[in-house]
């Protein structure tokens, strides 16, 4: 996207640099292949047939209920990836998305339990609450960085731990959770949210598909638009490339840091919403943790671009959704999926670097060949003259 294409109007297909496209795809494909190989070896050494395992996974993914489950997960993962990628684009490592989305979901669930308005007000209200809480929580790290120079990596990691504590304090009977009314369930949770907070879902043959997928798409499109079509996006990318250069050209770096931290946190606030608004309708102790970290892996895999993150989220969701089937249908350990995800992340980092170096070499060779050809033709002319 940063190539300096000549402004001449060419066809859409010609505009795509074939080689760049192939090189871009090579890295993730290579990473997936390597991780499949590693998992196969692992399964073989434990006396299990890897083909069967992959067969179970693809089988489930080709069934309608599997696809719904994958898309639902991918919706959540996509939001997580975009939230983290927004910071990454300006070299801001928001490791704290994990804390931001959990705190945001807790507050949204609480507000949803207390306030009962018509859907068209209730749902936007809850989304705003979640984004506000996520954004404000991230702002703490932003302010610390801007005023005191605290590394956002350190402060957001700390804030993750603090979030766990804060939720522990708030999510007790009498504060955010109703007093223990009947039942001795050990799970403490917020009051069930008002029915009007139910986000629509699309009923398909394979179960209900989160309507939130549309919000995820809108977020992705907005992300791309902001980055490539606005002054803010330009400043953001410029700051990401070089802070001092951006500063010299008139970008207020401090304000950029604070703003993008808040935006990243606000997007992180949405991560918990698909599940909260369409599935669980309460925040309990069994609320899914760790999505912020999943988001980091997905952003990395998707190279921080909206479309790349989309594919990465789908891949991640495919692995996670099909993992559930492994022990049930073939007595395979579901942990092989964790191994696969881990190796994909490591491999993709290595593969991107390899591909980058290869691309650089190719470019140098090309330029070299062109220069040589120019020199040769110049010599010929000289000889002729």
């Amino acid at each position, binding site marked *: 996207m940063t190539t300096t294409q000549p402004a001449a109007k060419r066809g859409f297909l010609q505009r795509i640099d074939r080689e760049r496209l192939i090189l871009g795809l090579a890295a993730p494909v290579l990473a997936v292949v390597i991780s499949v190989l590693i998992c196969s070896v692992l399964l073989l050494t434990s006396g299990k047939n890897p083909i069967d395992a992959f067969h179970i996974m693809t089988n489930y993914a080709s069934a*309608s209920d599997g*696809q719904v489950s994958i898309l639902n997960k991918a919706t959540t993962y996509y939001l997580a990836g975009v939230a983290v990628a927004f910071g990454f684009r300006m070299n801001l490592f928001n490791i704290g998305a994990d804390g931001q989305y959990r705190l945001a979901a807790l507050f949204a669930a609480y507000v949803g339990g207390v306030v009962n308005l018509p859907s068209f007000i209730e749902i936007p209200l809850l989304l705003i609450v979640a984004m506000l809480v996520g954004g404000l929580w991230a702002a703490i790290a932003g302010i610390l960085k801007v005023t005191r120079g605290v590394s956002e990596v350190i402060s957001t990691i700390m804030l993750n731990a603090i979030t766990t504590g804060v939720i*522990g304090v708030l999510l007790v009977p009498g504060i955010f959770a109703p007093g223990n009314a009947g039942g001795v369930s050990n799970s403490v949770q917020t009051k069930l949210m008002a029915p009007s907070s139910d986000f629509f879902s699309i009923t398909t043959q394979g179960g209900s598909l989160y309507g939130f*997928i549309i919000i995820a798409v809108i977020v992705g*499109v907005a992300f*791309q638009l902001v980055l490539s079509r606005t002054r803010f996006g330009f400043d953001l990318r410029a700051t990401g490339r070089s802070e001092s250069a951006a500063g010299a050209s008139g970008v207020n770096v401090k304000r950029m840091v604070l703003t993008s931290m808040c935006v990243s946190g606000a997007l992180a606030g949405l991560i918990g919403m698909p599940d909260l608004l369409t599935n669980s309708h309460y925040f309990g102790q069994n609320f899914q943790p760790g999505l912020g970290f999943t988001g980091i892996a997905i952003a990395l895999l998707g190279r921080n671009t909206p479309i790349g993150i989309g594919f990465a989220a789908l891949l991640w969701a495919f692995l996670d959704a099909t993992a559930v*089937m492994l022990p*049930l249908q073939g007595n395979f350990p*579901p942990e092989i999926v964790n191994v696969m995800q881990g190796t994909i992340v490591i491999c993709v980092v290595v593969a991107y670097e390899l591909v980058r170096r290869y691309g650089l070499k190719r470019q140098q060779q090309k330029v070299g060949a062109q220069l040589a050809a120019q020199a040769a033709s110049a010599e010929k002319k000289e000889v002729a003259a």
Partner: protein
Amino acid sequence: MRRTVKLAAVVLSGSLGIASLAACGAKSTDTTSAGSSGGSGIKVGMAYDVGGRGDQGFNDSAAAGLDKAKTDFGIQTTEAEAKTGEADSDKQTRLETLVTAGYNPIIAVGFVYQAAVEKVAKEHPNTKFAIIDSDSPTQPSNVTSLEFTEQQSSYLAGIAAASKTKTKHVGFIGGVQSELIKKFEAGYRAGVASVDSSISVDVTYLTTPPDFSGFSDPAKGKEAAQGQLDKNDDVIYAAAGASGTGAIQAVASKPGAWVIGVDTDQAKQPALAKYQGSILTSALKNVNTAVYAYIQSVKNNAPLTGVQRFDLKSGGVGLATTGGHIDDLKAKLDAATQQITSGAITVPTAPTGG
């Protein structure tokens, strides 16, 4: 600007295309023959919490009950365990898959399954479900809760601790400060106070929810136990899952100090057998008995329903006697057991503080 509009259109239509793809095609379960559980062979599906078979505790105990039922009744079984940090929808998928594969009954191990069990059970009223350690007023009638009166065994543990302490200081280590572990604390405190109300009880919880690492971190358990030993506590009750092994190690290194195990007879666990001389007793929670009893009831066509409490009377909870360290207290403990089972003593389920 036109290019971005085009881009947006492509992305939107692409995602909707995938969405519509999901709508067609067969479901993954269409090919498997569902619900063919007729005849004598019942198929039991078991969904464990994180850790699963081999966790040396709660899940393992449930697995032992399943194994016993398997050999006694010749039932067919399938097991699956939860992944760390999975979504609630994964639990639902797990249960759904078991249902459509014809497993009936399905046993969910651990309170984390409550929401998933409720949802799936409502959609499949003809399948029976059991959930361990949890119930809710909204669960449908095909869900059976298997619960334990941990406060009763903890009460007896408290009596044993109070009778053995020389320093008049005893300790309690809870894994996670959840409603469940508070029951252990409440019973223990009451038991200690019933012997001598001047004995002080030090209470340490390793973590507070939603941080559940307190059940699986022996290092934290060891540290907490060391702290209590330094405060002169000479009997420590560790109700902390796998973290308890750390506490047992710490206590074993101090001569004269006792530790009380939890859930299973910890003195008999191979990894802890060398500390047998320091393990006073263990407050048993016989998940295996509950699982076995439930499967048996289904097998006999008279399934247990509603909330089933496995207590001191029915052998659901109790004290282990391995090592014979509490043999001298037998009369005292038997008397207390008698009082509890007859209802003369009601053990509190929530700690009164102090």
